[in-house]
């Protein structure tokens, strides 16, 4: 990697008794689409607020395009776009007024950078005279992204842009991000939806202020240390409980209508498990070997003791 777009070294932030960020380090390359995946309380928002110079860290070094978040905060504000997790546009201004406002405070105009936001903004332009507060969730999201982009930033920080929006809007949003990425902009995005990890170049899986792992989504999955069976029967509720009592089982989690049973290689055979479930009265038992997905990996990392 050449000079990183975002560099974070041993970053720590504490709020009273809570360690929001616990000695975090990572680099994001220029033009990379980098995802921070984790639940509420993982530290994603604190991290983004520090990188966008809105919050001071307790310790550590952070730079954005070579600028220090404390010393050079003015330069960082010029070159960053930030979409906060909470909808932060002016509800009583119209769609167009909001975009104009953001263009003006960054000393530009909608016309000057229209090309950059065109594709996204066009979708809400028919409603440009509607007040922002009256937009649907998906439209608010598109307006917020347009406003974060209108000054042609080099780095984009998107804090949970897809939280609370439906599966279709989420899909469309990620398609927009992919096209934005093609223009060379560095994108840092956070999300609690694990399935969105596969859409990033690299991901940091976060939990309670710590980064549990950083790698490509493919590597996260190939590093999963256990074997996995997908088990189905007519009654998922009793199935989960009984699988947890089966000797050699490491963990059991529901995945839709199946249960994922994790175990150390050779500790379990599908045949003996099948026999066990039949003896417990389960009908229509189906057992297949399966590969881990990001959620399997996340849950395994959450419950395994920290390395080091």
């Amino acid at each position: 990697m050449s000079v990183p777009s975002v560099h974070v070294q041993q970053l720590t932030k504490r709020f009273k008794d809570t360690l929001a960020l616990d000695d975090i380090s990572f680099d994001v390359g220029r033009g990379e689409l980098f995802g921070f995946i984790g639940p509420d309380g993982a530290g994603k928002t604190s991290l983004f607020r520090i990188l966008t110079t809105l919050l001071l860290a307790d310790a550590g070094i952070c730079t954005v395009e070579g600028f220090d978040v404390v010393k050079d905060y003015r330069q960082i504000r010029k070159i960053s776009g930030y979409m906060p997790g909470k909808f932060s546009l002016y509800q009583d201004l119209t769609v167009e007024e909001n975009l104009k406002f953001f263009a003006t405070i960054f000393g530009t105009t909608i016309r000057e950078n229209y090309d950059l936001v065109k594709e996204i903004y066009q979708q809400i332009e028919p409603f440009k005279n509607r007040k922002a507060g009256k937009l649907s969730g998906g439209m608010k999201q598109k307006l917020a992204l347009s406003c974060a982009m209108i000054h042609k930033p080099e780095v984009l920080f998107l804090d949970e842009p897809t939280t609370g929006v439906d599966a279709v809007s989420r899909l469309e949003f990620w398609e927009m991000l992919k096209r934005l990425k093609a223009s060379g902009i560095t994108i840092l995005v956070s999300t609690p939806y694990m399935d969105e990890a596969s859409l990033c170049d690299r991901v940091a899986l976060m939990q309670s202020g710590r980064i549990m792992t950083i790698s490509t989504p493919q590597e996260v999955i190939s590093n999963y240390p256990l074997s996995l069976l997908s088990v189905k029967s007519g009654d998922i509720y009793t199935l989960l409980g009984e699988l947890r009592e089966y000797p050699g089982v490491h963990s059991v989690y529901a995945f839709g209508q199946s249960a994922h049973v994790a175990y150390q290689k050779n500790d379990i055979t599908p045949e003996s498990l099948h026999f066990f479930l039949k003896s417990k009265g389960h009908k229509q038992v189906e057992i297949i070997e399966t590969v881990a997905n990001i959620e399997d990996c996340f849950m395994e990392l959450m419950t395994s003791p920290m390395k080091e």
Partner: protein
Amino acid sequence: MSLSNENIITVKNLVKKFGTFVANDHLTFEVKKGEIFGFLGANGAGKTTAIKILCGLSYPTSGELSVAGFDIYTQREKVKKNIGYMSQRFSLYDDLTVFENIRFYGGIYGLRKKEIDSRSHDLMQRLGFESARNKLIRDIPLGWKQKLAFSVAILHNPKIVFLDEPTGGVDPITRRQFWDMIFEAAHGGITVFVTTHYMDEAEYCDRVSIMVDGRIAALDTPDNLKRQFSAPSMNEVFIKLART
């Protein structure tokens, strides 16, 4: 799970208009007793409007509705006594303690002091919350709040519990523990009516309805829906239906 054939919710031609806007356009469906019924739809499809009506918080423009055996026009107070409700925003008071919240809800639903004490004791033991009994809600983790909000919503043993996006923002283990609680409640005979944006959770439901633009575009078991739309997951079923 074997479902009874008894309908606990019956909706016939539900219409709800706001001015000229039709939020619910002739919805017709039934929910069986003890079922986990997924109520899905895109943002703005009309889910919240329908839930408010089913909970007796808003009148329909027209249509016949019976919830927990009571008529939604004439027996609203009886409907409210026989249902539980939990929303995304929780229903707990941040500046009351865990126990005070339980006592408050128990009181609202007319439980006696003895009952409240014994049920709250059981509940905290089951959740492993004994140490948090006197903690303020604002000081407990999000996952605990969700579990507590759910437990409080079913404290009065309702016939139906409505869950409006109950699992937002929590880690995948907590999300599953929450679903374990839902399975348990359904196993105990409580009907669960749930909305979610997590499409894998749609697969935990016995049946799922998907709303598009105020109408029910599909309603069946997850397996049948996947077959019908030749899709490997509920996520793809949803996208095929809701994408315009």
